[in-house]
């Protein structure tokens, strides 16, 4: 995505927001400039702390899910026997909307960060495991056989074939899941915490009725999602160079 295209999109969005704000003309939708001014003020007023709480939770959830799901997907995709055992289980669990487990996870894991990170982990884990499994299982047999003929056993196949082959799948899964992860983050931060952008948005909107600050929180959360999107793109350009050579 070109930087110019992104700047144009942001300007376009701000213009559309300004028009709608003028048409609505109510406190619940302040103009973008007013929100921007409050956003800058709020940076010194705790918004940065809330941002970093949210960033820590969503990053920890994503890192854990990659660390657990990528090897699991590789093992299942690389072994027909494991695939026969685990694929039906994944098939049953994958479509369940994990957000419904919010109360269950809170009951079991308490109200701290562990519960919040676990929920993000649960959602991302299945997305990554399915994509990595499919990628590993779909590798051309000739590729595996030619590596075997070079002396590669199971360990070398994982190191030289399955792992690098699954990197794009991991990054695609992450990119697809960022939106969901940030949405779940918002929900988890509504419960029993005083830090995080979810709490900040809800507290300013529903308790203090400080709508410009609420929107400043929404912008901060959008920047969090956008930043993560960029981070995944950056990682893909570094780790999957062959995909970007023309």
């Amino acid at each position, binding site marked *: 995505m070109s930087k110019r295209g992104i700047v144009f999109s942001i300007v376009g969005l701000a213009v559309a927001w300004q028009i709608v704000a003028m048409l609505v003309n109510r406190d619940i939708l302040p103009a973008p400039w007013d929100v921007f001014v409050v956003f800058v003020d709020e940076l010194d007023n705790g918004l940065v702390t809330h941002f970093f709480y949210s960033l820590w939770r969503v990053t920890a959830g994503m890192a854990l899910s990659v660390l657990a799901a990528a090897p699991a997907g590789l093992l299942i995709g690389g072994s027909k026997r494991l695939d026969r055992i685990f694929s039906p289980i994944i098939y049953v669990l994958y479509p369940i909307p994990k957000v419904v487990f919010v109360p269950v996870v809170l009951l079991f894991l308490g109200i701290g960060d562990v519960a919040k990170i676990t929920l993000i982990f649960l959602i991302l884990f299945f997305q990554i495991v399915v994509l990595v499994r499919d990628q590993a299982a779909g590798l*051309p047999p*000739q*590729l595996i*056989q*030619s*590596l*075997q*003929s*070079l*002396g*590669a*056993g199971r*360990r*070398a196949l994982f*190191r*030289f*074939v399955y792992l*690098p*082959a699954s*990197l794009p799948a991991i990054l695609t899964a992450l990119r697809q899941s960022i939106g969901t992860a940030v949405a779940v983050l918002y929900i988890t931060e509504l419960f029993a915490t005083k830090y995080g952008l979810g709490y900040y948005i809800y507290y300013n909107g529903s308790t203090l009725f400080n709508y410009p600050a609420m929107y400043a929180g929404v912008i901060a959360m959008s920047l969090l999602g956008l930043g993560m999107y960029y981070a995944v793109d950056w990682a893909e350009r570094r780790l*999957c*160079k*062959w995909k970007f*050579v023309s």
Partner: protein
Amino acid sequence: MINLHSLSFGYPHTAPIFQNFNWKVERGETWAILGSSGCGKTTLLYLLAGLRFPTAGVIEIDGEPLKRPRPRTGLILQDYGLLPWATVRENAGLGLQVRDFYGEDGKHTPKNFQPEKDPEYWITKLGLGEVAEKFPAHISGGQRQRTAIARTLALSPDLLLMDEPFSSLDAITREDLQHLTLSLCKEQALTLVIVTHAIEEAIALGSKILLLDSSPRIFENPKGRAGETGHRNSREYRELCDLLWKEMRNEK
């Protein structure tokens, strides 16, 4: 070099492909295995590579029964088997990387293994210097096959197995690579077994031709002519082409 004793093989729930099959290849020979689709020629190559195992009988290479891929056997496949995420240089050095990964364990890597020549030598020799930093998707089919050959030769093999390696290449590149293969076999004292469905290619590369069908037969290629310049215009070449053509047609 290769000895097949009473070999039988079949895939589950299908008719056996080989039954009580015997075959012998001497060191330094170049063999072409010819046959129509589904006759088992690729299966035979995979058996020789140690990637499939006979249901009965024994495969011996260098007097040793074959139980797993043999370190000194090189396999080159039709679609090259190159890693798409690795450059030509990285692909050429892949076999050595795999050996480094295991260390000299005597199983994946032979004890006291020392490659005779650096992968860089083969990159230069096979004319890949200019594309060494490119990825397989960005080079021609001929260059990909050269990379696969460089990767195999970097492991100093004594037996080269090739599965229809040139079938997806244009006629000029195919002939260039056929000549290159034969000259490398001669230079490195390699034994060559190449699978093909093209009669012309079998005659161009094989000093002996194994025709695989219901009753496998061996054809001698007129001595010393295979791969030589002008061989294709010789009477012997045309006669052998006609003979193999008839034999294959009769089978159908």
